[in-house]
């Protein structure tokens, strides 16, 4: 019998680059992003920051959707909750350093995810979707209907101070054109760390067990894995990473409103995952950039941004089965290793009680 940790020694997780070339391509993207603000206008620098924050949320959710086969509509709430924690800790005029706000925001998001996850993971499939959605909206109504966080209008907050080793970087001391840079580079670093952290996790035994759960939960249970705990752990980790993304949003925008907590945020993140490609972790990043670019193009081209977005989403779901990252593998000469492409074509069997795919392996 092959032990999962043995497999882990041998091959990369199917959602990660399968070759050194893939990693080099990712590094090249990071390199481009690192020098981008030098040539882009402040507006586009801000837009890319937004895309990177979206990518972080999508990456967090991808741990559940792509790696575990759970579709949660509640993680937008943890994202928004974290942003509101920053507001509650450091309202306008009373900033706190990032090394205080970031762990706090992630901790609160993690606790919320633990509570919601423990309850909603008692259910499966559609039930799980609906329950995560309902709990997520509960957080939305807390901020929407009470005065806790400025009510429906939202509120300004003091952006967390970027502080390390006793040095504080104050964006206001920079020239006007460069004021968005600190947030941009913090977001870039956080994005890279999030990706690498998730990559490490996916390649570990933990990630392999999640993969097993995605393919056939009952088999994993029969093998003696505490399936529920693994799913809950993934749910909480995704919640904390969503919180980190929400914290980054507060640092970037300095403003919170109930929209951040709404389930539409979760749906947007899911859309980024789908646009980028469900089979690849980096797809979440590609999808986030595509989504932000789509919104921007729709805004420029027409008054009816949502209509364009809706139609493009429809088209993407119907036509783009494997997302942007899947386009390459369908071109001749660029076929991926057989195993992973077979998985992509079949599609994840998700939560089916008996899985034909698994049985036929």
């Amino acid at each position, binding site marked *: 019998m092959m032990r999962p940790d043995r497999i882990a020694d041998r091959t990369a997780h199917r959602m990660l680059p399968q070759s050194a070339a893939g990693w080099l391509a990712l590094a090249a993207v990071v390199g481009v992003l690192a020098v981008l603000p030098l040539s882009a206008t402040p507006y586009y620098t801000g837009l890319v920051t937004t895309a990177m924050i979206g990518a972080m949320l999508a990456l967090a959710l991808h741990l559940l959707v792509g790696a575990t086969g759970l579709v949660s509509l509640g993680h937008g709430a943890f994202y928004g909750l974290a942003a509101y924690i920053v507001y509650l800790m450091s309202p306008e005029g009373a900033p706190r350093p990032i090394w205080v706000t970031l762990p706090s925001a992630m901790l609160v998001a993690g606790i919320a995810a633990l509570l919601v996850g423990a309850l909603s993971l008692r259910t499966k499939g*559609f039930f799980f979707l609906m329950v995560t959605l309902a709990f997520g909206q509960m957080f939305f109504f807390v901020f929407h209907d009470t005065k806790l966080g400025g009510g429906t209008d939202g509120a300004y907050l003091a952006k967390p101070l970027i502080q390390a080793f006793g040095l504080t970087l104050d964006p206001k001391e920079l020239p006007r054109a460069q004021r968005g840079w600190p947030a941009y580079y913090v977001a870039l670093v956080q994005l890279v760390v999030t990706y690498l952290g998730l990559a490490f996790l996916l390649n570990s035994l933990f990630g392999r067990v999640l993969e097993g759960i995605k393919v056939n939960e009952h088999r994993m249970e029969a093998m003696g894995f505490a399936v529920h705990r693994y799913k809950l752990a993934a749910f909480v980790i995704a919640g904390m990473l969503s919180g980190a993304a929400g914290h980054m949003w507060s640092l970037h925008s300095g403003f919170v409103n109930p929209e951040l907590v709404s389930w539409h945020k979760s749906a947007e993140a*899911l859309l980024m995952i789908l646009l980028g490609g469900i089979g690849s972790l980096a797809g979440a990043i590609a999808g986030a950039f595509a989504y932000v670019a789509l919104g921007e193009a729709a805004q420029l081209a027409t008054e009816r941004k949502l209509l364009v977005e809706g139609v493009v989403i429809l088209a993407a779901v*119907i036509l783009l089965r494997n997302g942007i990252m899947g386009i390459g593998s369908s071109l001749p000469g660029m076929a991926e290793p057989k195993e992973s492409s077979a998985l992509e074509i079949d599609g994840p069997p998700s939560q089916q009680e008996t899985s034909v795919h698994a049985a036929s392996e």
Partner: protein
Amino acid sequence: MSGFLSQLLNGLQYGLLLFLIASGLTLIFGVLGIINLAHGSLFMIGAYLAFLVTKATGSLWFALPVGIGAGLVIGAVLERVLFRYFYDREHLDQVLVTFALILIFEEMRSLVVGNDFYSVPVPAALDFSIPITAGFSYAAYRFFVIGACLVLAAALITWIERTNMGAVIRAAAEKPEMVDILGLDARRVHLTVFAVGTALAVTAGGLAAPLTSVYPNMGDGMLIISFVVVVIGGLGSVSGAFFAALLIGLIDTLGKAYGQAFAGSGLGNIIAACASMAVYILMVIVLLFRPAGLFGRRA
């Protein structure tokens, strides 16, 4: 006392409207295996349709039959053109397609009617109050809504429990492959269920329009609360949805009406907050003890 009676009736009426929405949701899920996040938007469409027809004809009486008819047509078209391709697709795809529909419906609403709030007048024939006790009377239109919802609920449940078509629908929910094996027309079942479910949501919107007025994104809140109803009632169970909808309508209305009375002190604020969250607390309790819902059979 009369205040309490009025809240009780409000809760009943809200719960019955919720049933119209949630029953469609649960029926469509049970038979077609699809989750329709745009179901709340159908409620919104119904309300705006009632507003437009009332404005054009001067009376809500025309709006209600138009709503039912339009709901059936919209449902049938959506099923034929879009949803039938998604029965076997993954949850993620279904979620995103229906999310896209929400965006499209809202933007079309914005195109046609704009983004303002509008009130819809109660029909003149029902624009009075019925005295119940010496000091208390209750709006006739609200009684009409209660009555109309009860009639629709009774018709729906009779249709499902007592007719041949209903038997096929129940069979399709229980064992979809049996419908094919027995040579029954699954396509027709799918089409009918989706059209009826849609018409119920659209009709609920029309009935609610004079009570709530019409406004952008009005379907979103209804969608979430309908999900709670379906989770509590048990996915796929129409009678479960009926009792859960009434329960939630009453708890939500009474909680919001009386919870605020406690606000002020520290503990009081917590009670008030819990009262406004009562629906979610109920959902937590159900999930802890009956994860399949109160009336659900499958785990």
